[in-house]
């Protein structure tokens, strides 16, 4: 490496247009001002990165140890503030995925690309390194047609004592069955991904790309391996079949695959220049891509800070500075013991999040939101989505870590965009069946304990996601069929009675609600203290103030916001649709308004009923949870909504 002095990377390199996104950050074209060499600059904001710095260092460690014409070259990395600049070899031809945008590949081109990727894999595997994210997007071409592997964001180095690495990363469509089932990764998993990439290069997409990524994870281990179908030579089909053997022991190595007829007869790299030229012309005809827009300056994080608590300095002056380590006379033995116990507890704790317990609470809390939405949807005559009957708990998926969560989130967004532009979007979404939920093993919980950042992506995603996105996301994760805890006929019946405006029916309905709530109360001998306070408060207000707003935090902070979000979504669609669909949407919004009135009326008639309703909902979703756990989840859900 030639950049060793303490340097400001912005003085050494001129950053030009953005050329893409890697797994950790954005990538720019750049110039080394000293040598005029063109380089690729990957910039990661370590403050925003969802992975620990150690994981980013891992990528760089792997890159810096690679010296092969089939792997993108690493030149160095420099820190400026919280921004890490990683200087890489620039490859002007683009990625194989880019080139496919301009048109499909001939088999001859595919053979060349696969051979070069195999050479890269052979090099990596001989170095006891894995790539773990082989796909067309990570295959780069130079302008001379040379092919190189790139983006080792999830690469790992096998130690000599551990030949298999237990982890669950990659991109679902390209993931090997043994990785999905057992989180068992070794060099053979890269070969499976290569086979999927071969199909991707031939067809333009990996197999099952029309399905939800979570469903694909469920199907890959279960189904027969994908095949290359269509008018391709037998040697190409044989090659793909060899790569996609479900038993990793029977999959050839990269070195062995290099001897396959399909690979041996592949032509020189220079033939790929045709693809590169075609892509350039296509880009010109398409006009400037948004990806090539230059960024003028990095945003300053100073603006994010504020608040008097932050700005006001601490009081640091100390009078009569002398050290007195004697115990305080005023502390009694009980208090001292309590402190000692707490000290021990603190000493034994790690910096990690709560681990399994904390993570498990999240799906339930989100499922709560999903269920409330489902109830609303049911009231609005929208059919409830259910899981496939064939799915059983015995087919539970292996545990996920933050990488998978991140990938899934991105894929979900992509699928949503794709579906919205499709005429059959609604049908596709309704027909998509969620897989069963993941089962967290003890080893996975231990892993979560050690990896504090695993909770960060969930937090970030859940904050920004809209409720319906949450519904889809959590439904996929949980793999649970959504149950309507309020029967549809009963709800419809209530609405009919209310619309009739008959005085007698209203009173009868009210009495029924009271009776039902009383029955529910009897089943919960330990009513929550907060609920009791609510009841007491309402009683004190007197019978004359029947119109006072309810004090239920559950109703005001959770149920109403969720229902309002749904109402807004359905009302928004009305203006865009035709007269008929507009009317239907308006009706849906109106129905949700009625549902809100029902909740409010019930809470006013029987204070605390919203809390009971929510607890029953959680209990149905997660029967194994204790009452304390359910209360915690409820408090968290309500707090999150504020």
């Amino acid at each position, binding site marked *: 490496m030639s950049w*060793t002095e303490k340097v400001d990377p912005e003085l050494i390199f001129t950053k030009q247009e953005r050329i893409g996104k890697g797994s950790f950050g954005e990538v720019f074209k750049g110039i080394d001002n000293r040598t005029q060499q063109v380089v690729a600059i990957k910039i990661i904001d370590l403050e925003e990165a969802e992975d620990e710095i150690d994981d980013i260092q891992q990528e760089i460690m792997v890159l810096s140890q690679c010296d092969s014409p089939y792997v993108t070259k690493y030149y*160095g990395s420099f820190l400026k503030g919280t921004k890490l600049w990683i200087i890489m070899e620039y490859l002007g031809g683009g990625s194989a995925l880019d080139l496919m945008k301009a048109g499909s590949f001939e088999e001859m081109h595919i053979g060349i690309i696969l051979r070069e990727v195999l050479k890269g894999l052979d090099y990596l595997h001989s170095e006891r390194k894995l790539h773990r994210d082989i796909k067309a997007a990570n295959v780069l071409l130079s302008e001379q047609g040379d092919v190189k592997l790139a983006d080792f964001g999830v690469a790992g180095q096998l130690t000599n004592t551990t030949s298999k690495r237990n982890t669950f990363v990659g991109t679902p469509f390209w993931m090997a069955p043994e990785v999905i089932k057992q989180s068992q990764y070794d060099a053979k998993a890269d070969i499976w991904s290569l086979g999927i990439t071969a199909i991707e290069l031939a067809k333009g997409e990996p197999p099952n790309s029309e399905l939800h990524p979570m469903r694909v994870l469920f199907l890959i281990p279960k189904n027969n391996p994908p095949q290359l179908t269509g008018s391709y030579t037998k040697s190409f089909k044989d090659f793909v079949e060899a790569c996609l053997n479900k038993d990793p022991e029977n999959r050839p190595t990269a070195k062995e695959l290099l001897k396959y007829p399909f690979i041996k007869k592949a032509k020189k790299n220079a033939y790929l220049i045709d693809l590169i030229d075609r892509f350039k012309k296509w880009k010109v005809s398409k006009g400037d891509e948004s990806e090539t827009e230059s960024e003028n300056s990095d945003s300053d994080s100073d603006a994010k800070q504020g608040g008097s608590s932050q700005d006001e300095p601490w009081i640091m002056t100390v009078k009569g500075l002398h050290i007195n380590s004697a115990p305080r006379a005023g502390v009694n033995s009980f208090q001292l013991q309590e402190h000692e116990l*707490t000290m021990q507890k603190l000493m034994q704790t790690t910096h990690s999040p709560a681990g399994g317990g904390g993570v498990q609470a999240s799906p339930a809390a989100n499922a709560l939101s999903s269920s409330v939405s489902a109830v609303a949807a049911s009231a609005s005559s929208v059919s409830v989505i259910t899981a496939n009957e064939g799915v059983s708990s015995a087919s539970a998926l292996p545990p996920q870590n933050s990488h998978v969560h991140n990938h899934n989130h991105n894929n979900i967004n992509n699928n949503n965009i794709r579906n919205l532009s499709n005429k059959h979007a609604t049908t596709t979404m309704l027909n998509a069946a969620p897989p069963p939920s993941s089962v967290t093993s003890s080893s996975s919980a231990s892993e979560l304990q050690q990896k504090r950042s695993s909770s960060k992506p969930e937090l970030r995603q859940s904050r920004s996601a809209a409720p319906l996105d949450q519904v889809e996301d959590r439904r996929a994760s949980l793999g649970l069929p959504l149950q309507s805890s309020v029967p549809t006929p009963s709800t419809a019946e209530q609405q009919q009675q209310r619309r009739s405006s008959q005085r007698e029916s209203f009173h009868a309905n009210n009495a029924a609600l009271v009776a039902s709530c009383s029955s529910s109360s009897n089943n919960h001998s330990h009513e929550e203290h907060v609920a009791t306070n609510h009841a007491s408060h309402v009683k004190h207000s007197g019978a004359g103030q029947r119109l006072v707003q309810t004090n239920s935090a559950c109703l005001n902070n959770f149920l109403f916001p969720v229902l309002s979000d749904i109402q807004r979504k359905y009302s928004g669609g009305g203006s865009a649709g035709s007269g008929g669909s507009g009317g239907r949407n308006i009706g849906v919004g109106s129905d949700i308004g009625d549902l809100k009135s029902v909740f409010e009326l019930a809470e006013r008639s029987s204070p605390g009923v919203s809390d009971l309703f929510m607890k029953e909902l959680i209990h149905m979703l997660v029967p194994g949870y204790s009452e304390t756990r359910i209360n915690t989840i409820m408090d968290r859900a309500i*707090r999150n909504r504020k």
Partner: protein
Amino acid sequence: MPLFGKSQKSPVELVKSLKEAINALEAGDRKVEKAQEDVSKNLVSIKNMLYGSSDAEPPADYVVAQLSQELYNSNLLLLLIQNLHRIDFEGKKHVALIFNNVLRRQIGTRSPTVEYICTKPEILFTLMAGYEDAHPEIALNSGTMLRECARYEALAKIMLHSDEFFKFFRYVEVSTFDIASDAFSTFKELLTRHKLLCAEFLDANYDKFFSQHYQRLLNSENYVTRRQSLKLLGELLLDRHNFTVMTRYISEPENLKLMMNMLKEKSRNIQFEAFHVFKVFVANPNKPKPILDILLRNQTKLVDFLTNFHTDRSEDEQFNDEKAYLIKQIKELKPLPEA
């Protein structure tokens, strides 16, 4: 070697040949290119002898034993490390692979190579110097070997108690991210791998380690150094083996002031790491008066500050429990009764 058919150079011959090539490389005369090629070729042969290759059979135990013994006899390990900067890119990696393999060798409960290196500590000191600016291209290879050495307590002890160890406080701050990070990995391994050894070292070198050196890391201009050293500090203090060191650290008001200021850093990640050190000061049932005074003077501010501290970490149950505990403790602080 195909040229020799099935016959292979013996371990003795290989080591002899490699040593001659290294000496020629070091001499740097007209035949340096030839020496370079010979070094590479012999390194590959030795590596294949130890690891096997796709062509050859796996190595026999006696071959490994012979090879190791010859490496000791010829002093070749030190020669390889001293000339690492003269060896080519792939050759450097082969040296690390060979070194680490030989190091892991065991006969019963004995580790012969570990014992050998204990008699040649210069090997360790030369590896540690691999992070120096003079030859940045060998830093990562040296680091790989150092971390393998750190797994053995006898070798870790030699490294910890050497003057060279304190140079790591400079290595971890260099602006080349990959070298600084690698150095930090080795630094952390030495301080956390062997608990009792580390505790004794920190206790015996408290002033030099914490006041003279670690404080500078925590105030570094380098964001990564600041963040990673703060995280490591939290781990060191909360390790039960380091109870004596922890007690001393949380009795010093300068340390508390630093943590309170770091709670207000711009970086949320650094704020979070600072919290896990700050909590130990508050949880200490035997607070010295200066510590108590600082907390009391900021009592109201601290309660308000912590109440609004990282409220978006709603899923982190342990963090929120600890935060609630700290708020409670701070609210209940009372001055010491006057003597």
